[in-house]
């Protein structure tokens, strides 16, 4: 533990003790003006302690804000990764929506061709597509959370006086994370846009 605050605390405790003793003395001799001045002395010690604490908190906050504005990782989060996360989730919504509709297209095509028993099963498959609604609602609520996070991060960066109104250069540390499925509207780097492109590339490589 840092010994400095303890010393400070010990100092103010002894000052408190002195003023309390003085108040007791003034009470014993019924000296109102001495009591009041001792009370003022007591308050002054307390005010000094509060001020010291406020200064310390202010200093810590300033340090934290300076560290924050220097930390490009946070600016990177606010400018790139948080908006990316939202775009990725929006894409998940589209993928599951498309897949569920595709499944239902096929079910609707099959239903006239099959007997009653199979039809009942196909209706179960149809109903199972409600996962898209249920998971989609959850994804949307996470997207709302991301919106709030983005606003908060950008506010914090602004308060910290970050010079990075111009977004910082991307990815300066560690290996690049795996990109996963390509997401429309995001910078996919050199991702290919479909199987044909993949086949064409493989062909130029002699496969």
């Amino acid at each position, binding site marked *: 533990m840092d010994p400095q605050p303890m010393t400070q605390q010990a100092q103010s405790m002894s000052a408190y003790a002195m003023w309390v003793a003085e108040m007791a003395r003034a009470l014993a001799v019924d000296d109102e003006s001495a009591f009041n001045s001792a009370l003022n002395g007591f308050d002054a010690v307390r005010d000094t302690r509060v001020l010291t604490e406020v200064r310390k908190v202010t200093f810590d906050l300033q340090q934290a804000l300076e560290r924050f504005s220097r930390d490009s990782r946070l600016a990177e989060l606010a400018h790139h990764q948080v908006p990316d996360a939202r775009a990725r989730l929006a894409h998940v919504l589209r993928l599951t929506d498309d897949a569920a509709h595709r499944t239902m297209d096929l079910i609707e095509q099959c239903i006239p061709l099959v007997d009653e028993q199979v039809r009942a099963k196909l*209706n179960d498959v*149809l*109903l199972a597509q409600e*996962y*898209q*609604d*249920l998971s*989609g609602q959850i994804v949307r609520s996470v997207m709302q959370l991301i919106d709030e996070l983005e606003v908060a991060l950008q506010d914090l960066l602004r308060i910290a006086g970050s010079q990075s109104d111009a977004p910082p250069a991307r990815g300066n540390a560690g290996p690049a994370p795996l990109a996963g499925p390509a997401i429309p509207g995001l910078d996919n780097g050199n991702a290919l846009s479909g199987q044909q492109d993949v086949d064409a590339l493989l062909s130029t490589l002699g496969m």
Partner: protein
Amino acid sequence: MNFLVVDDFSTMRRIIKNLLNDLGYANVTEADDGNTALPMLKQGNFDFLITDWNMPGMPGLELLKQVRADSRLAKMPVLMLTAEAKREQIVEAAQAGVNGYVIKPFTAAVLKEKIDKILATRPGA
């Protein structure tokens, strides 16, 4: 019997529409939230409303209240089909005059049972 199905997820609207068709209800119209649904209800000739709760724009509870507040629509059977499963929400919907409440995920049997029950107890049924 003309149904209006209100849900912001097209997947869910399509599921409900298919299930209704399978139950023999061929006339099913879709809307994606309360703001779209309300004018359709006021102009159209609907007999039954199935609505989600959590939708952007006008949510299902507000739609229900608007329907109950409109003298021409006030008696319309309304079934809420929603993932909102908190007790106080269900109570709130009941107080607003909902006729049935089905929680997602749901089954075709439950949907049929609730619709049948609402239609059986409807005035003039």
